């Protein structure tokens, strides 16, 4: 039962609140970059509440249950990942071996839910967008796994998030070493693709395929996808903070550091997204399988050498 509490409180509520705040920061900074005023603090929440009140349209001839259930599965998996991460962050001893791999796998499910939802829309634009999302997963997954393996090597071959955290608490965060820095850079760029932010917003590409997989979603379904994406804006950076920058500590001055780490990552994402044009999907695949993979391999070699 205690897990259900964690699940609902940390995994859902806290993550959602922080995610909505992060999305506000992102929008505000973007507005400042573009010489606009930007939205008020509660705008992301207001958006979702407003969407919940709107009519839900279902494209004709689509398979209705798949179309409506896809967002829910995505949301459930995001909540599950963030619960796992929170439990590990608060009680490192509670982690089980291999939870790193479980997290990596679970982080793919939100993207799958978007893909299945897009496929179920019975709209060619949605299909195109969803297929791009799939190719994007293929491309970033390789360097992402390699980058995460760097932390495994550095922490003495453990696949336990808790042990990675305790190791960093004793020996300093991995980002302070050469290999850690390189791996973190790769991981941040992969995160940009994972969150489908510019320059890797190829699946959604509003100006080109009108939102891609989300084109047919409206009302409640869209609200859930929005919530899921906002929550991912917390979950993925949180994962990187845990494996690379020593996690978030909730006591005293460390809380401030933790908040700074997170805001730093969000600000970085926002800056990248505001200063780059969108790339094509084949460019993205080449970019991730080429330079990014090579940098990640270099990081692994450095890590094996103990740098």
């Amino acid at each position, binding site marked *: 039962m205690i897990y259900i509490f964690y699940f609902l409180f940390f995994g859902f509520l806290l993550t959602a609140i922080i995610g909505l705040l992060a999305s506000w920061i992102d929008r505000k900074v973007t507005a400042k970059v573009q010489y606009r005023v930007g939205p008020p603090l509660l705008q992301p929440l207001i958006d979702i509440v407003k969407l919940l009140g709107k009519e839900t349209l279902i494209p*004709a001839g689509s398979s209705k249950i798949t179309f409506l259930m896809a967002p*829910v599965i995505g949301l459930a998996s995001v909540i599950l990942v963030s619960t796992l991460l929170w439990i590990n962050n608060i009680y490192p001893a509670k982690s089980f071996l291999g939870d790193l791999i479980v997290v990596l796998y679970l982080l793919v499910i939100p993207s799958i839910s978007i893909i299945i939802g897009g496929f179920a829309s019975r709209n060619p634009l949605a*299909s195109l967008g969803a297929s791009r999302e799939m190719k994007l997963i293929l491309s970033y997954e390789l360097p992402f796994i390699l980058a995460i393996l760097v932390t495994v090597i550095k922490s003495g071959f453990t696949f336990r998030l808790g042990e990675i955290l305790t190791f960093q608490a004793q020996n300093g965060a991995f980002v302070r070493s050469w290999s850690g820095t390189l791996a973190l850079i790769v991981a941040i760029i992969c995160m940009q693709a994972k969150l489908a932010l510019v320059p890797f917003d190829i699946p959604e590409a509003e100006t080109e395929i009108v939102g891609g997989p989300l*084109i047919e979603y409206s009302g409640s379904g869209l609200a859930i996808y929005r919530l899921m994406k906002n929550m991912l804006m917390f979950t993925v950076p949180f994962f990187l903070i845990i494996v690379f920058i020593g996690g978030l500590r909730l006591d005293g001055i460390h809380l401030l550091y933790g908040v700074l780490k997170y805001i730093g990552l969000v600000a970085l994402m926002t800056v990248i997204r505001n200063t780059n044009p969108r790339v094509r999907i084949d460019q993205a695949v080449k970019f991730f399988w080429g330079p990014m993979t090579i940098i990640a391999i270099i990081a692994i070699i450095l890590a094996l050498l103990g740098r």
Partner: protein
Amino acid sequence: MNLTAQFFKFDNLSIFVGIFIGIFFLLITIYSFGFMWQRKKLIYYYSYLILTFISSLGAVFSNNLILFMVFWGFLGFLLYLLIEFAQTENASYTAKKAFIIIGGTDALMLLGLALVWRLTGSLQMDEISISLNTKVAVLAYMCLAAGAFAKAGAMPFHTWVPDTAEDAPTPVTAFLPASLDKLLGIYFLARITLDMFKMNPAINTVLMIVGSVTIVAAVMMALIQHDLKRLLGYHAVSQVGYMVLGIGTGNPIGIAGGLFHMLNHAIYKSCLFLSGGAVEKEAGTTDLEKLGGFGKIMPITFITFLIASLSISGIPPFNGFASKWMIYQGIIKTADNGNNLWIIWLIAAMFGSALTLASFMKLIHAVFLGQPANEQPRSNEVLTKAESMINKRRETSPTMWIPQVFLAVLCIIFGVFAYRIPLKMFIFPSLVEKIEFFGIWNASLATILIIVGVVVGIIVYLLGTIRKTRETEAFIGGEILEKQSNMRVSGTEFYNTIKDITPLGTIYGLAERKVFDIYHLGSIITFGFNKVLRYIHNGVLPTYLAWCFLGMIILFYILLR
């Protein structure tokens, strides 16, 4: 010594494989009642099925290697006969190909048997224990392993699997290459690796190389296929890689993972083939270009296919994840030996899993979701009730969907209760060494949490205005989908981007010219010899006379010298 004990052996491993052979035989027979309905010569078909069942049991339970080889060879022949039941043009070619590849490796196995006899003087499986320190021992192991690889479909003996999958009747594919041949091949690999030979790190590395290459190469081929069954066939190859990789780790957790994956693979792959067969029966084709939109017509088949494809992609909490996760643990464990190759194996396995997911997303789109290929000429109004009732009726007959549903339910049960049911009952007892788990992926708890998450999602839906939904036409920038036939996205072209990337494009080109096909290479070599001989036999009398004359001269020269 009584005869039974001499020739047959019933230990936990063989009993476990035997039980599942029985289950698959039952399911496939039930399915065949629906699928093979109104075809000719069914009496032969069912008797071949029964013979296959009996000889698989014989192979699994036999303790004498000669007896094992007899059953094993008989299975190859039955496969040949069963493929011939197909109604496609290529069937006889495919049957011949499968027969030659399997028969050829059977010959290698006989050579291996002879070497084993020479080394130990015994052909009883439980008496043999060879350490791999001489070249002869390594050769014997390789010969026997080649047989196991060909049966299971690991590279480089894999090429008969996709062809068979494409041409053979679907229940045959689901029965032999997808489930029984995997069970038998990996069973035999486990037998020789665990019982008959004492492994050393070098041979383990060879096994792991074979596994990793099989995973990645086969799944890359699967990405670009245009045929439902052929695509599934390539996955039947790719998944063998995980099993070989698991057994190749050489530590108990990896081996248990490999065996568990063998079981899981047999379950979800036959589920996939059976669901694919249901679609084939309904649509009359397996060409992905011509399929689409079957999710609404065949909801049961869609759900079973979806569950099985999430399982094969290793999505938690289904069974594929449980076994892959054990294999990963095994791979990580090999890091204790001090070499860093484990990174490569791990990357191959994890990335292969992402590629698997990608190709199944393509399949799900092309077959079940997306736009139907032959649009019924209807104006842009919503389907009427009567029409959708007609569509509903097109779900397959119960004899076909009952096996599918059974297998899909097994996928869920073996994933969620992995430690309580399959591992405890079948896998752990069949291994001699004790398994030390370093961590339990608590699938049941995760499932409960996912269900709670789904409930949260549904509550969010209910907070909104979900009760008042409305159907509309899809929005494509103001165009009308039905009028624009060229706007259909079938899904076959999804990964052309990847196909065009520089080094991969060349490799795909070579693969399409069958450069990596051992059968094709073999036939080139054989016909190359033929060409030389054919040149001599040109059918012209003076040439033959000249040869006779030449022979006489040589003969006289030797005799009268």
